[in-house]
């Protein structure tokens, strides 16, 4: 009984924790969402200093008001076709800090930033299982907004721990 109740509570908590404001952006024609509290800043595309001996998805580092922040290209990370950056291309600076890491910031390059959306719990569904051992851990859920589906990302899990470590060791 108590176990069931705990299950329920957990589910409710996860559901509750998922509802809230998301920053949506576009990538390869699809809409993605980021938890707003993860977002530190949105900036237009700027000069990225490339860093040698890094994976291809790591575009380099930028100087954001005196702070050097690593930048990854989400397209490349998601193994999509790379595109030429244009005036719509944006860098979203996100906080990937968690219990183990503190105040770590990272820039992600997206095709364009859309808007800030308030998404209710009832609009969010769990990630469907694709019947494979596909790693869908970095997906928080699927938001059904105005007939479309937006993929809500857990940006802290997009890069694996190893990747993150290698990235921040470099720095």
């Amino acid at each position, binding site marked *: 009984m108590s176990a069931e109740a705990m299950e329920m509570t957990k589910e409710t908590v996860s559901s509750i924790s998922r509802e809230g404001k998301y920053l949506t952006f576009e990538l390869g024609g699809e809409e993605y969402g980021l938890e*707003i*509290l993860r*977002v530190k800043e949105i900036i*237009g595309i700027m000069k990225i200093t490339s860093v040698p001996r890094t994976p291809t998805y790591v575009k380099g580092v930028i100087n954001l008001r005196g702070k050097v922040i690593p930048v990854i290209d989400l397209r490349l990370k998601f193994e999509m076709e790379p595109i030429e950056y244009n005036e719509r291309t944006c860098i979203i600076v996100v906080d990937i800090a968690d219990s183990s890491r503190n105040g770590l910031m990272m820039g992600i390059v997206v095709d364009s*930033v859309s808007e*800030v959306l308030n998404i209710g719990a009832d609009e969010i569904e769990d990630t469907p299982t694709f019947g494979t051992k596909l790693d869908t851990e970095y997906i928080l859920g699927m938001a059904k907004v105005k007939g479309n589906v937006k993929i809500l990302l857990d940006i802290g899990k997009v890069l694996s721990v190893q990747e993150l470590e290698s990235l921040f060791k470099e720095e």
Partner: protein
Amino acid sequence: MIAETVLITGLCLVGAAVVAGALYLTRGKAPTTILWIKVSPGILVLCICLFILGKFGAYHYTALGLCVGMGLLVMGGVFTLFVEQAMNPLTRVIEQIAGGTDQIVVASGQLLLSSQSLSDGANEQASSIEETSSSLEEMASMTQQNVGHSKEAMSLVGRSMEKLKEANGLMKSLIESMENTSAASDDVSKIIKTIDQIAFQTNLLALNAAVEAARAGEAGAGFSVVAEEVRNLAMRSSEASLSTQELITDVIKKIEAGTGLVERTDDCYREVAINVQKTNNLMDEIVSASQEQAQGIEQINTAVAEIDKVTQQNAANAEESASASRQMSVQAQKMRDLVEGTAGVGADAGHLGGGGAGFARTVRQAVIPRMFGQKGEKVLLKIAHGK
């Protein structure tokens, strides 16, 4: 005595006839025979006269009369023979002349006919030459008109060329103006791009503001609304700038198309200018050719006028020759009549001894009409016949 005279006369007649018959039989129609025939009446008359004288007893005149009479008779006979002999060639000549005159009459008739037809022909020719002359004059005036028209056309072509040059200048101005418009559109496009960039930046700022408002939680609720509004404005200006950009792109495209059309028009004008130049040259040639033609026609006109003069003269000459041949014909007729009369004289002269009847005929036919005319002849004939 009368019986004796008649007897003697009869004897003499028989004797003369016998002699004449013997002469005719032996000599044919020889001068001797003719002489005998012509002399014998005289001898007969002489013999009768002498017989009558002898009867009245004047014998001493007989021998003398016989001698004188015989001598006169022989002389007359010989003279007659001689005249006949002499007249023979003359008669032949006159006969030939008569033949010739006949021919002259025929020929002069033919000449009359042909000179009349010549005259008619010359008249006809003169009239057709007049027609030719008038058509030539018409032609000359037409050519002059052609020259005038060609000159007018040339001046028109010249004016067209001027207008074409003006159009060319206008075309260049038009192209320049279109290029200016295109450049201005480019400038506007740049400004729109700047506006778009500003809208984009504003959008980013609004989004950042929204993020900050979200972080502020409940306290930032109002601010988030403002941020949303700002973002909407930014989006709208972005959209507006986008549609303006599209419009300007469209305008630029249209201007480019217009420029292309204008260039093609310019090419066409250039071609037209070349053609007009060619037309001008051709017109020039036409004018000079027409002038030459006019000169040629003038020369032809002069020549035709001369031909006309000559033809007029020919016509007059033919007329004159027709009248001359008419006169000639009349004269030939007269001559023939005269010759016929003369031939009669010749023939009669050969027969003087024949009693002069031939001579009388000659006088009637040839002499009287010339002396008294046809009427006089008739009157004389009536007198002669005792009417």
